[in-house]
């Protein structure tokens, strides 16, 4: 398995009138060739900032530091504007949450799709037009000639998101960062767009970072899942490990917040409280004030990263050998039971 993106101890701080905002506080993350990694967390947990730091598209005043920020072994931090432009669009592409505001309202769709190819591969004229039409067809839009001549406001929400995907993929990138690509769409469209992204991944051998706040969406697409809270990754593992063997109380909360039609409960679980003020210097575990399982040490010292399996890491004091016994919520115990049964049936890592 080749590592395509490697991030070590990424820190991003924004100056603000109320003091510096610590948006990302020491993120470690790797993306392997051909996998889909879901980055999950509440709004403001630093998911987008992490990926924007990769492409250096953060606001000018952002302070970024990292022990490692590499793409294919190449350092991204401190790259010249010219060199980072060579990576943007042609190696790593981004699609955004709201396709209407992410498209230039006064430029025709075809031109917007073709731009990356025109700039990176210097394709011009008829060849460019043909490439654009092929790309429009590839993302499942009918009548490419007609679509290419339209303006963003003349398309529907789903069509616009397909156009965004075409824009991102036309210059054949290796990595696609999808930043909540389905959040602005209704549920039936969500499924279609996810299916499209999955299909394109297969065809083009893409590696994907899929940002979302909805674990329900993740289940359909992710190979691995990283859970973010207050600018840190609190749990990372394979999709199976996160869904059926979750260890962090925050992950439990997120899993319980996913609507489940089979559930006996009348009301949907909601996590109490709010994420910490990013202006604050955090002491101990950032999640402690909202954590019913918090230990005394959680308020004093930051929990270390504990390894559960070769792929599964958790940042919680609960996994410390000295931690007292605890019992997760019933819904989580059910998941654990399924996981343990699976483990007995299919031996892993063998």
């Amino acid at each position: 398995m080749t590592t395509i993106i490697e991030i070590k101890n990424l820190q991003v701080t924004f100056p603000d009138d109320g003091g510096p905002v610590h948006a990302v506080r020491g993120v470690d993350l790797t993306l392997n060739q051909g996998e889909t990694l879901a980055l999950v967390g509440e709004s403001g947990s630093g998911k987008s900032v992490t990926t924007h730091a990769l492409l250096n598209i953060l606001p000018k005043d952002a302070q970024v530091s990292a022990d490692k920020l590499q793409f294919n072994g190449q350092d991204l931090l401190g790259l010249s504007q010219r060199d980072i432009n060579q990576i943007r669009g042609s190696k790593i592409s981004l699609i955004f949450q709201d396709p209407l505001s992410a498209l230039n309202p006064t430029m025709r769709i075809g031109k917007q799709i073709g731009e990356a190819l025109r700039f990176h591969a210097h394709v011009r004229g008829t060849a460019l037009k043909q490439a654009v039409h092929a790309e429009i067809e590839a993302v499942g839009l009918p009548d490419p000639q007609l679509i290419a001549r339209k303006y963003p406001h003349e398309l529907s929400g789903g069509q616009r998101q397909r156009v965004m995907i075409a824009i991102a993929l036309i210059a054949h990138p290796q990595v696609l960062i999808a930043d909540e690509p389905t959040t602005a769409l209704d549920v039936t469209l969500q499924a279609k767009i996810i299916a499209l992204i999955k299909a394109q991944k297969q065809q083009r051998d893409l590696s994907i970072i899929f940002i979302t706040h909805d674990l329900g969406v993740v289940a359909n697409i992710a190979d691995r899942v990283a859970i973010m809270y207050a600018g840190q990754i609190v749990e990372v593992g394979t999709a199976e490990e996160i869904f059926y063997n979750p260890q962090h109380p925050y992950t439990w909360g997120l899993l319980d917040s996913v609507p489940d039609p089979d559930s006996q409960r009348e009301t949907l679980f909601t996590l109490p409280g709010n994420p910490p003020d990013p202006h604050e210097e955090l002491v101990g575990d950032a999640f402690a004030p909202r954590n019913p399982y918090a230990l005394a040490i959680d308020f004093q010292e930051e929990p270390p990263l504990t390894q559960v399996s070769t792929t599964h890491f958790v940042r919680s004091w609960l996994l410390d050998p000295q931690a007292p016994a605890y019992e997760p919520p019933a819904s989580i115990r059910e998941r654990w039971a399924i996981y343990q049964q699976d483990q007995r049936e299919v031996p892993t890592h063998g």
Partner: protein
Amino acid sequence: MLKVILRRLIALLISLFLIASATFFLLAAVPGDALSAQTDKLPAATRKQVYQNTGLDQPVLKRYGITMTNMLHGDFGTSIADPGMTMKTVIEEKLPPSARLGLQQILFGVPLGLLLGVLAAVYKNRWVDRGVTVVSLLLMSVPSLILGLLLQSYFGGKLGLFPIIGWPEGSDLWFGGWAYTILPTLAGGLGYIASYARLLKNSMLDVLSSDYVLTARTKGLPGWRVVSEHVIRNAAIPIITSLPVTVAFSITGSVFVESIFVIPGVGQYFVQALTNRDVPIIMGETVLLAALYIVTLFITDLLYMAVDPRIKLYQS
């Protein structure tokens, strides 16, 4: 499209009718008229004769009828206070100085304002931006009247660099007598610098912080290409649509600047007509300015449509 133009034309006529009527009755409602000062000391019989000659002795509604009927035929009548002057001679004699002044103000103020606006947006929160913000706020808060008086007293009076009042005439009407035009151009043009700098800065900042500019950057386009392909057109929309109004109004004369610099233009003549209660001239100017304004707004709409594909005046 033809339907839209036709609809606008009907709206124009209705607006003009309402504006003309309102102006007429407001003027009639104020005590005194164009002749009361001149005829005050005349014997009653003579005074009656003078009033009969101008038709001011007729009842208001009858005068309204006559005025409106004549206006329909394009005849605004002859000035009462300034015998011999008609709207035609006003346009021929008074418009050129106003037009030259307005054009000079625009050619000086608008490009400079746009330049400063771009600089302020690109160097946001740096000293250029702070300077532009403070100066434009200052210039926008000081009316051109005060600005004109200050310029007169300093550059005209104290330094004696430029004539304080007056305007080139005769062969110098369009090109010449530049010294006379500098202070009035500054008095009005500085305001344009301020307003256009602010307008462009704000719209540039809007566009620069938009998601689609971020999209353009993630495509790997170099900075200048992002600006030329994605920023300029979108940021220019508010400029393109406010320029026609600026042009229309500056070339038809500014009341304050023409008055304090004694420029024989439309604005000054309008003020004179108002103080003299010169009904034919006031009516003529009001109707012309209103028509100009409405036509300009229509041109603005057409420009809007040309630069922004989201805007449609008609359903195709």
